């Protein structure tokens, strides 16, 4: 490979140089970034993106599989400071080759600035299948190193372990990339463990619990094999959460207890706090509020000691739930408000949504349907935004109940139907709840009227809910 000896940063800055120069001089720029490993691609993309943003350029990611006529796409949305990153070109073959070859001048006329992120076979296909287009290239820059090169390892580990994402799209992209990396690096036990563990958490976030558990168990096995105690504790804990979310509280307790033991053994305070909290949740689920409160308070104490803001917010919120369960609404609201403040402060969207939904529950319990609806709507928006399907189902279901109590049957039915869809898709045990709610509604309306309403609402349930959230009349 020709650029072997050149540092990574130089090659990234060469791409950046071409693009910013094209931007400054109002020129097109057709670049190819050739990569071997998805990890390195992601790394190069991030560095390049940072560099370009500093120069006032915007990145637009394009999935070629969805846009085969790339020249048309570039022409239709190109603005001077847009740089297109084209991915997945393989999925657009062979049509995209013809489009590129024939309409290559459109890229030039519109001063398109494009980086095609390609693998070796893809680049070969382009140079033979769209030779006239390829002749217009400015540069091919190679990122062909093996990703486990020691100097990149810390970044790789960091990426493999990363589980914090702000949106559903980010999560999906990360899952896709990690799955690819997993197959690339299957002989690297440690990295595989991190990837499997992280994938387990991410699948759980998008409510794929079966997959989450499958990956988590694999990660757990590797951690035990290679003697990674901290990893073992984390995997056990995450499995506990996944089992809990799947509705198996007893199994959740079993895993959390094992994880707690390891955390205490290796003095992992943060892990200890999480496991205690997890146990709290499991006992709440089993109806043992007193035990739950006990665990949550321990978890909260540690979180505060070690300055774990996120944990603090979550345990405060959960304490709210637990005290609400024993009938202390005033105390519950107090906890929720504290938790909400923290969630906003650290931009923990997920917990913000959870707290809002819990405030909805309290308002509903106090008979203030209007306020409850408002809280549920706010939480629903957040869950949709971050792709929390399970919680989305909860908010929709609860919102439906409020609407029903308000005799707004059309809205109620739309919420129930969407909740049912989601809960069916993610195999949520709470599906039973929504089914019961639908049955209640049917009884209240009478079979005939219900069927009439259902025929009307079912085809546009999503639209109705969208309008509710937009505040426009249904």
């Amino acid at each position, binding site marked *: 490979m020709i650029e072997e000896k050149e540092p990574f940063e130089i090659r990234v800055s060469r791409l950046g140089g071409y693009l910013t120069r094209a931007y400054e001089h109002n020129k097109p720029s057709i670049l190819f970034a050739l990569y071997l490993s998805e990890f390195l691609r992601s790394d190069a993309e991030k560095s390049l993106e940072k560099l370009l943003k500093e120069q006032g350029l915007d990145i637009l990611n394009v999935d070629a599989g969805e846009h085969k006529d790339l020249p048309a796409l570039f022409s239709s949305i190109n603005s001077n400071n847009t740089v297109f990153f084209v991915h997945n070109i393989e999925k657009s073959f062979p049509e995209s080759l*013809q489009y590129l070859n*024939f309409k290559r001048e459109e890229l030039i006329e519109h001063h398109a600035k494009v980086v095609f992120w390609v693998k070796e076979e893809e680049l070969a296909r382009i140079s033979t299948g769209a030779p006239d287009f390829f*002749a217009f290239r400015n540069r091919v820059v190679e990122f062909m190193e093996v990703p486990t090169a020691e100097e990149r390892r810390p970044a790789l580990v960091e990426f493999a372990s990363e589980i914090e994402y702000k949106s559903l799209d980010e999560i999906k992209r990360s899952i896709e990339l990690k799955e690819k990396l997993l197959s690339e690096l299957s002989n690297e036990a440690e990295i595989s463990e991190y990837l499997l563990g992280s994938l387990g958490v991410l699948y759980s976030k998008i409510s794929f619990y079966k997959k989450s558990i499958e990956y988590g168990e694999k990660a757990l096995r590797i951690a035990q094999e290679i003697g990674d105690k901290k990893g073992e504790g984390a995997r056990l804990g995450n499995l506990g959460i996944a089992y809990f979310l799947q509705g198996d509280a007893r199994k959740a307790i079993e895993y959390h207890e094992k994880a707690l033991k390891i955390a205490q053994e290796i003095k992992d305070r943060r892990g200890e706090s999480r496991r205690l909290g997890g146990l709290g949740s499991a006992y709440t689920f089993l109806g043992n509020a007193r035990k739950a409160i006990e665990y949550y308070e321990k978890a909260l104490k540690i979180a505060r000691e070690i300055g774990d803001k996120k944990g603090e917010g979550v345990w405060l919120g959960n304490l709210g739930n637990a005290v609400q369960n024993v009938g202390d609404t005033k105390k519950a609201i107090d906890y929720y408000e504290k938790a909400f403040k923290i969630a906003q402060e650290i931009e923990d969207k997920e917990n913000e949504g959870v707290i809002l939904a819990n405030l909805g529950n309290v308002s509903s319990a106090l008979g203030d349907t209007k306020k409850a609806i408002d809280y549920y709507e706010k939480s629903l928006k957040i869950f949709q935004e971050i792709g929390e399907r399970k919680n989305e189902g909860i908010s929709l279901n609860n919102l439906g109940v409020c609407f029903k109590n308000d005799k707004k049957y059309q809205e109620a039915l739309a919420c129930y139907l969407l909740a049912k869809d989601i809960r069916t898709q993610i195999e949520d045990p709470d599906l039973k709840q929504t089914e019961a709610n639908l049955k209640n509604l049917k009884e209240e309306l009478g079979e005939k009227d219900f069927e009439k309403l259902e025929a009307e609402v079912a085809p546009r349930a999503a639209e109705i809910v969208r309008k509710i959230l937009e505040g426009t009349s249904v």
Partner: protein
Amino acid sequence: MPEEYIVADNFNLALSNFDPSYPLPADCPFHVEREDKPLDRLKTALLIEHKQTPKYFFSGHRGCGKSTELNNLAADNDINQKFYVVKYSVKDVCDVNNLNYIDVLFSIGAQLYIQYVEAGKELSLELKKDLENWEKSIEKTFEEKTSLRTSLGAGLKAFFFTMQAKIKTEDSTRKIIREKIEPKLSELIDKINLIIADIEGKEKKKVLVLIDDLDKPGLDRAKEIFYNNYTAITQPKCYIVYTVPISIMFTQESTTLRDYQFFLPNIKLHPKNDRNSKHEPGYRVMRNFIFKRMKEELIESDALELAIKMGAGVFRETARIMQIAAYSAIEHKRTKIIKEDIERAEREIRSDFKRILRSEDYDSLKEIYACNEICGIEKIGHLLHNLSVLEYVNYENWCDIHPTLEKLINP
């Protein structure tokens, strides 16, 4: 397109001037005269009298200046004295993924009509009536077969525009148009010839149609158009220059086109079988090509000679080498491009080739490297297509491997 053609006195401007993606417009100051004026042969052929209007097939290596030369031909004084010139690119009027000879023929008629009318001129009333009747007969088919309507009664120009747009973008309509026109091909050709006759009568000139970018479809599609439907596409009674893919000239069927083919050769840089000596006129052209774009003082002389050698006598490839080298000089904060910068470009281009060459290709390349002969066209058609083998002309045709590949073949 560089808005101003200024000789670069810095690398930043040089990067622009050496952009590989710009064909030059006619009369551009960056244009270099080729030593052998290859287009003169085509020009001469067009200017002499013919009993039957000839059709020429124009090809050349990718990046050797076809579009540039075609632009020049369309703007040439002598040509414009004898001809009413209509030039267009198929990519503007046809669908790139689905091109057949009917589309090409229709585009000739449509472009003749549209360009003539857009120049503010008018065709005879009689012809317009005739075309309107034809238009109606086609539109009737549309009403029968689909609910689609062309803009009925909106005039012929609109008709041609709409039809062209449909051919370009609408799969189903294109199919209907082809189905409708194919059995009555003579009718379409007849209408094209009526338009030609009318323009020739009014302008007192012959009609010359120059069609660019017909070399872009793949070889199979090109064969279908130019061989299997040779009779049809040579029917219009005007002079036509079709661009065709270079690889089509190296197929067995190519004898059909032989008498009328014009090949725009690469610039010869050394005599056959003598890689170490320089063909000075070729180097002069390429030096000129470089110095029209960048000042001489920005490059060391040994770097310049190497850049020309590695550019293989292909303009675009030379431009690419200079662009990479200029960037390399910027990266290294140099005031002059040195040999090392050219060597970097050489390595990059070699890497691009390495990715696409198959193991059996190396044998062909070795053979050509040894004898400079075109040996077995079936083996090297695709190599000519991807520029790893280049053809040169003096008294006879010969070829050589791309100079960046020498280190692969003969390390």
